[in-house]
């Protein structure tokens, strides 16, 4: 069974801090994704990666960056946290090989920026 693990379930940070959200998957998946989940807006893609050291902007990349130094780990970085980045963050991974591979999600990190 695929396991996607996000390092924190809850996180509280202050405005202006640099914040790291970590995600690890154990199924050797090529693709990894970071979303934020907000009521009434659904899931919005921040960044994704289809290989080590490769990254692509999603729909809302502003204020975020990512790092994929190893295949199993995909980090989301808030360079200077702001209150409008308070949200639930979901990491997902999927196998490569065509459009029908499902995405497997982590439990999420609920981030509060004060």
């Amino acid at each position, binding site marked *: 069974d695929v396991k996607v693990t996000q390092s924190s379930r809850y996180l509280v940070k202050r405005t202006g801090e640099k914040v790291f959200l970590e995600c690890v998957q154990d199924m050797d998946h090529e693709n990894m994704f970071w979303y934020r989940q907000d009521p009434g807006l*659904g899931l919005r893609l921040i960044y994704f990666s289809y290989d080590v050291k490769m990254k692509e902007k999603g729909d809302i990349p502003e204020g975020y960056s990512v790092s994929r130094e190893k295949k199993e780990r995909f980090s989301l970085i808030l360079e200077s946290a702001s209150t409008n980045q308070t949200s639930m963050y979901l990491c997902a991974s999927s196998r490569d090989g065509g*459009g029908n591979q499902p995405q497997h999600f982590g439990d999420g990190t609920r981030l509060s920026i004060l």
Partner: protein
Amino acid sequence: AQRVTQPEKLLSVFKGAPVELKCNYSYSGSPELFWYVQYSRQRLQLLLRHISRESIKGFTADLNKGETSFHLKKPFAQEEDSAMYYCALRAGNKLVFGAGTILRVKS
């Protein structure tokens, strides 16, 4: 532009009643559509995909290209179906999600 629309934020039905969660999409290519579900205190997970033409937990969804819809249906709702449901469209390497519909099944 790729877009997924779920017009209902909340759908409330009684146990045993039929359920239809609406999903409409906008996509210029050949669409691949999915339904994901998130039960309370659980992670988001795939429910079904249109290409498999499967029935999962009694749910089915048919892709209607003419109406650009992929509505999720179940003939008799159960209390354990209460959850958040997301419709999603594959666009290249990405999934585009709708805003989600909360299904509440009352006893």
